[in-house]
């Protein structure tokens, strides 16, 4: 019968529609491909370290000589492991065989993005729960990886990697035991070869130092980080790049350096940065400076201020006195022509925000759920390092310079924010509607501008052929906060300039670290 015929046809059609709808959609991520290392930086072991006194501070025992029968056994074992490697293990060998410094920064940025979510308010609708470092996996998970937290985290990671690699380089050129494929021509590594001494393994050093720092910073991720580090270290066997004793010495050294940096981190002032009990005195001090209309949280319910004492966290590239000297003067006060001019600019943007202004504000927003502005510049640094194909120790140096500058920018900016307690534009005029979330801390100076000024300055020093576009990016990042209407122009201009000054101190470190 014709009706059943058509009905059957319909049912088949619907079934096809339904099965078509099963397919999964997912974006692809770029992979850091391995590249040959063009320079060995044989004097890398003498470069000036950040936390260690020097690259020779932690002694590394002499390796078994390549002529020994024990080493020959290690070579045999390596060949067995290579022959037994599965396709997945070979893929991992290539993945980790790229720039491992950058791979670990990628992991750090991913964790930052995952943990950068402000806690929801309690069911009472009045208060907020506090992330608890002693119970990190329970909501609200610890940490809330906001911009200052992430800036500090990336700096600590970068410093640990850098100091660990300087120490590794020192031991490498002290002992001069080369890679296994230099002693046995039958070993065909899966990644580009080089003449770098392979004892201790720089990859094991990076893996363990990175793992230990990230475990402290993201304590609920211990299992994931252990897995990543083991994968990284084992991948050197599958790749044919290290023997077991290279890796073992690297593990021990990486752990020793990490312990020093962890000790530094435990005493850098971060533990009390979120202390809200000082808010009354902070407000009173700002009032004494003549700031009557002060910042208040615009979240509903009113959220505790973000890390009001982060401005007291230790800086990397200058001292406390310099930090205070870097403090900009008071901004224009409401009622002054300068203030009204900058407010008028925001009012006109609210009325007629262009699509391009919206795009710029969104591109640089780096708000909740993102790796934050320090993460944005960390990524840019990684891209430039990848483009210039720096070796591991030079990559670590570049990352240390950029990320300590970002950390210092965060500290100086937070110092200024809670020094003056300047209200957000929307507090001055409730008709100022934004195109991005209003951050939960005072306006002056702009954090994005300070971070961006510092990072662009250091990256321009490291990659001078990109100086123009880096400075343009920093300028755009700074302006993005005006386009989003969450900052006055004076916040951004003063912040950008302060950031550049902060960057100069990192450059000073770079110029005198012995890497030239």
């Amino acid at each position, binding site marked *: 019968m*014709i*009706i059943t015929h*058509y*009905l059957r*046809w*319909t049912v088949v*059609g*619907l079934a096809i*529609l*339904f099965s*078509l*709808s*099963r*397919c*999964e*959609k*997912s*974006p*692809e*991520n*770029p992979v850091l491909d391995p590249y040959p290392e063009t320079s060995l930086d044989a004097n890398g072991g003498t470069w000036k370290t950040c936390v260690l006194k020097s690259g020779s501070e932690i002694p590394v025992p002499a390796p078994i000589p390549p002529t020994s029968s024990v080493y020959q056994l290690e070579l045999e074992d390596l060949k067995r492991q290579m022959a037994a490697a599965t396709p997945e293990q070979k893929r991992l060998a290539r993945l980790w065989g790229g720039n491992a410094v950058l791979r670990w920064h990628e992991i750090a*940025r*991913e964790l930052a*993005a*995952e943990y950068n*979510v*402000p*806690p*929801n*308010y309690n069911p009472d*609708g009045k208060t907020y729960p506090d992330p608890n470092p002693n119970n990190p996996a329970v*909501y609200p998970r610890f940490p809330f990886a906001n911009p200052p937290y992430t800036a500090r985290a990336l700096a600590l990671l970068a410093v640990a990697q850098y100091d660990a690699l300087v120490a590794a380089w020192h031991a490498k050129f002290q002992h001069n035991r080369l890679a296994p494929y230099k002693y046995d021509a039958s070993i065909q590594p899966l990644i580009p070869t080089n003449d770098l001494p392979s004892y201790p393994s720089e990859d094991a050093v990076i893996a363990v130092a990175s793992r230990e720092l990230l475990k402290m910073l993201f304590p609920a991720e211990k299992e994931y980080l252990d897995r990543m580090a083991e994968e990284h270290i084992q991948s050197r066997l599958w790749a044919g790049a290290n023997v077991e004793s290279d890796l073992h010495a690297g593990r021990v050294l990486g752990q020793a350096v990490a312990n020093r940096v962890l000790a530094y981190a435990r005493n850098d002032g971060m533990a009390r940065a979120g202390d809200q009990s000082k808010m009354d005195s902070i407000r009173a001090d700002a009032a004494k400076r003549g700031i009557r209309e002060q910042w208040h949280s*615009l*979240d*509903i*319910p009113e959220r505790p201020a973000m890390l009001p004492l982060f401005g007291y966290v230790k800086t990397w590239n200058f001292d406390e006195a310099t930090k205070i000297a870097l403090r900009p003067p008071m901004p224009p006060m409401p009622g002054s022509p300068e203030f009204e001019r900058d407010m008028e600019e925001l009012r006109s943007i*609210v009325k007629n*925000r262009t*699509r391009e202004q*919206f*795009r710029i504000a*969104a*591109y640089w*927003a780096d708000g*909740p*759920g*993102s*790796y934050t502005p320090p993460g944005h510049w960390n*990524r840019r640094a990684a891209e430039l390092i990848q483009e210039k194909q720096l070796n591991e120790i030079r990559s670590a140096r570049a990352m240390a310079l950029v990320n300590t500058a970002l950390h210092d920018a965060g500290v100086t900016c937070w110092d200024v924010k809670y020094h003056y307690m300047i209200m957000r534009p*929307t507090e001055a005029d409730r008709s*100022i*509607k*934004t*195109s*991005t*979330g*209003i951050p939960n801390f005072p306006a002056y100076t702009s954090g994005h501008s300070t971070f961006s000024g510092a990072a662009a300055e250091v990256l321009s020093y490291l990659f001078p052929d990109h100086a123009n576009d880096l400075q343009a990016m920093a300028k755009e990042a700074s302006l993005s906060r005006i386009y989003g*209407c969450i900052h006055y122009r004076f916040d951004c201009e003063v912040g950008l300039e302060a950031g550049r000054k902060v960057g100069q101190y990192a450059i000073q470190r770079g110029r005198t670290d012995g890497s030239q």
Partner: protein
Amino acid sequence: MHNFYQILAMLRHYFFLPALLFALPTIYAQLPDDALMMTKGQWCILTQYTHNSWTNYWEGPTRRSNLNLGVVTTQSAMLGFDYGISRRLNVLGALPYVWTHSSASYLQGQRGLQDFSLWLKYQPFEANVAGGEVRLQATGGLSTPVSNYVADFMPLAIGLGSRTASLRGIVNFTHAKGLYVTLQAGHTWRSDITTDRDAFMYNNQLYYTNRMPVPNLFDASGRLGFINARLQAEVQMSYFTGTSGDDIRYNEMPQPTNRMRATTVGLYAKYFVWQRLALQAAYGQVLNGRNVGQGTTLSGGISYLIGTSRR
């Protein structure tokens, strides 16, 4: 055979806002999805105003409100048409202007022209059975954003920014006394979109790209109604689900990658003021969902018929 007035009834479903599922999971199905056809040479023009608002929404499986959003309201004004190429083949189009608002947030509401949609509707078969008529139909549609609106600004975005293509099957039985029932199901393919940011979290993983996947969509609905020369009234239930995608992260804003799902009930009434002119009103309520607002929708519209019936 087609009731002359009945023809007008179809348009209400055509002018859905395909992109706005977070804001408007309403009584409107996703496409031309009822069973009525224009005859050859006829035009029908529809204008419609829609108001959707919600306070509660589903963050993943969890229903919640957000003091920092308050009430989120999406309104639209839409112009649409249906043209009979032949008795068996119609072409339909729609273009909405949308504006959004949040009562508590300082985020600026968005406004603008959203997506232009075009459909072909084909009726290969009809037959008289059991004192009425059975019809089978298929529609295929395309849509594209017509302005460069910001899609990655949910829940205040005016649309998802995707280009879409859709296929749909419809079965209708209308009894000679005026009772009718319509069942339909369809699939919508949606293109990735280019966002202003160049990194985002998706399925709890960070991706370094500005190409954001927007889930495809499966939907189905059923409606039961009565129609005569003056009045039409209908109850309906509809369901849609993204076929991939992630949940809104806890205490985060939604984004176009989210897998949205909703079950909605609705009422619909239409009054024929004159042979060519009809007024219509609709009400819809989301009962259950995932990654969507629990929206309440009210809409009102006027449709006008141009051209003669060939009956």
